[in-house]
């Protein structure tokens, strides 16, 4: 790939991202009236309606939609997504504070997914009818069918309550990296705490990936070029793990990249069950508290993460599959 190609591609992506962010902010903003009345969460039960209305006025919540949205978008382009009612800090700052916890959780879950799905997928594709394959496939069905929060609650019950091996909630001790990143991966306590949540989070995607890799691999093993490679006398091992596997992974990466993005959505459930102090839990709490600035900021940030991860996937895809060019690129 040539540098001008890349620059043009990234520029186009940037424009798309801006458009996506704009649409998301508009949608997010227009649903806020249906999320509930933030004042209810801010004041006690016996505060009078007049008093609440005065506060609503003061917060600008009684202004017409376009004025409110205009005010929001003017500030947003300057990097100010509003102030969280609950945390009393800029919403962006609150979310970025929680980002490391979610990122590390997704990172570990992704490692689990990749680390297990590739060998297991390949194994079950090659040994189609072995007993181990049947067991793996059986478990993968269960994994796909059981909702994440149920897996999480079972995991807590078995490993924390019954066996007492694992902590039941939270993130444990963290280590502050110089640039303000609180890492739980650098302390023993933090590592202990991340085991159950990351397994629970990977419990849906892992079986999905095993099945995906298995299906792709089986298809590739039937192709003409694999048969030809065998006939040519290449060693089975080389045919399987170099030629076949490489071609298996091309579609897996493109689908996989997008699916890893949706892991962020699953963090909402996982983090809530484990009281994991990350963005997903923050979001659910914000919805419960009708903390609208925080809700909209979260939606925008997650939208941004999706755009970025999809861009990366496209880049990786062109890199591993040289026959693909950037769509509409300079030819």
């Amino acid at each position: 790939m040539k540098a001008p190609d890349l620059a043009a591609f990234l520029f186009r992506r940037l424009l798309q991202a801006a458009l996506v962010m704009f649409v998301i902010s508009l949608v997010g903003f227009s649903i806020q009236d249906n999320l509930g009345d933030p004042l209810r969460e801010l004041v006690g039960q016996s505060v009078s309606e007049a008093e609440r209305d005065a506060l609503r006025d003061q917060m600008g919540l009684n202004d017409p939609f376009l004025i409110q949205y205009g005010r929001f978008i003017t500030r947003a382009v300057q990097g100010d997504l509003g102030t969280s009612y609950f945390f009393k800090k800029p919403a962006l700052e609150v979310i970025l504070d929680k980002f490391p916890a979610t990122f590390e959780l997704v990172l570990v879950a992704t490692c689990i997914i990749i680390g297990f799905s590739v060998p297991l997928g390949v194994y079950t594709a090659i040994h189609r009818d072995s007993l181990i394959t049947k067991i793996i496939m059986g478990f993968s069905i269960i994994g796909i069918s059981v909702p994440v929060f149920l897996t999480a609650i079972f995991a807590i019950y078995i490993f924390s309550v019954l066996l007492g091996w694992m902590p039941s909630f939270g993130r444990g001790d963290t280590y502050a990296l110089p640039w303000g990143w609180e890492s739980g991966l650098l302390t023993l306590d933090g590592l202990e705490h991340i085991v159950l949540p990351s397994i629970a989070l990977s419990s849906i995607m892992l079986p999905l990936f095993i099945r995906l890799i298995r299906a792709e691999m089986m298809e590739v093993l039937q192709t003409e070029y694999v048969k030809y490679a065998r006939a040519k006398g290449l060693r089975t091992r080389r045919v399987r793990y170099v030629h076949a596997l490489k071609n298996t992974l091309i579609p897996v990466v493109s689908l996989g990249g997008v699916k890893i993005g949706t892991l962020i959505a699953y963090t909402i459930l996982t983090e809530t069950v484990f009281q994991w102090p990350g963005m997903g839990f923050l979001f659910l709490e914000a919805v419960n508290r009708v903390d609208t600035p925080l809700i909209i900021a979260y939606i925008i940030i997650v939208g941004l993460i999706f755009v970025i991860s999809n861009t990366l996937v496209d880049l990786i895809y062109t890199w591993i599959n040289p026959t693909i060019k950037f769509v509409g690129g300079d030819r």
Partner: protein
Amino acid sequence: MRLKHVLLAGVCAVGLSGIAEAKTLKMAYDADPVSLDIHEQLSGGTLQLSHMVCDPLVRWASDLSFEPRLAESWERVNETTVQFNLRSGVKFHSGNTMTADDVVWTFNRLKGSPDFKGIFEPFKAMNKVGDNSVEIVTDGPFPLVMHNATYIFPLDSKFYEGKDEIIKHGDSFASKNISCTGPYTIASREQGVKVEFARNADYWDSNSPGNVEKIVFTPIKESPTRVAALLSGDVDFIAPVPPTDLGRISDDPKTDLITKSGTRIITLQLNQQRVEAFKDPKVRLAIVHAINNEAIVEKIMRGFGTAAAQMSPKGYLGYNDSLKPRFDLDKAKALMAEAGHADGLSVTMMCPNNRYVNDAKICEAASAMLSKINIKVDLTTMPKAQYWPKFDERAADIMMIGWHSDTEDSANFYEFLAMTPNADTGRGQYNSGNYSNADVDAMTEKTLKMTDDVERAKVLQGIEKILYDEAAYVPLHWQDLAWAARKGVNIDAVVNVMNFPYLGDLVIE
């Protein structure tokens, strides 16, 4: 047991043998306090925090009498004045000494707080009477001076000087810093994640048996996780306890379960403005007779509640012993026929699904019960965030409302739930049924000016009787309260029906 814990326990055993043990309490509630400004929001969370970091002038004892705290004694000077004599030599966390000026300053700040001004409205002023006493002056005779004095937690006026603004939805000095007189100080706080409290070394109450040096408070939102954290030993004390896990916790040899009959009444209101038939007391009586609230308590609440026939819980002045739940399906049918609605009605009902214990299930049960008398209910349930705006709109014919009296007094129930709605006075603000009875209005106003408890109790109980006879609303039950702790953590002695445990007095064996 985890290896690290074994090692830690070993190290502690060696290191601490012979030294008086510093006890740490690890506790988990479902949410952490919204703000460190105890005047910002009137809520259970704020009061729980207030009782840890501050002390009130007087506090509730377990028999619902008043116990002296920062006020050593008090006396009624005349019909409209009560004098409080303050404890001397009490230090704030900042090191400043508490004086009458601080108490007056705190009182005035409360009067300016949107959440608390309602409670303090009957109080005209607080005056300083010498360095160690203050007097509260009310507009007229007022029975709840002591009740409301439990809300006065003196704050350090010098500490807040010039930075005492109450801001509900933004940053303020007071929402992040606090200087009070209580048993604990805030050692660190990460909102939504953890609050650490440290024992106040200069605590004035040297008679307090409390031996907890440090509290680590973690909010755990999900009930199953909170219970798991207790059962696995990660925390020592949790609240609230979900009804589904009560059995498991009381059966576990390592944990104690404490339950108390609570004071929050759960009711359904029948909107007379939306449904013509609800104007007829016979129809309302039929509905009350058709809903088997004892069965709801037994089957849905799993015994975790007390079936109610009135608003005032036992122990309140207004509690009328003669009023009993009255499920009787035949009578309900007869009443419907008498009212000319034998072929029934079609109504809508709305309930929250995450506000009260099992709220949505209770409403499902109630609508099934109403179908027995041919009342067809179209039920909608929704999260509280969406429910409250609907409630304000009076968006359904039958709506659920639970109420806890902020003053721990019966009149508060009638003021908000039973009096004729009036936007100017704020009376009847939560009376979505629009029930209106001039006698109830007049009697309630009267009880807010009576200072003789015996006479007052008669009037309050009379109001309960009227509401009962006219079936002004459908009483369901009082929700129980539950706390659970590891054995050896003696929470039984510090928890109370108001649900603000006096953790300063907590003893861990």
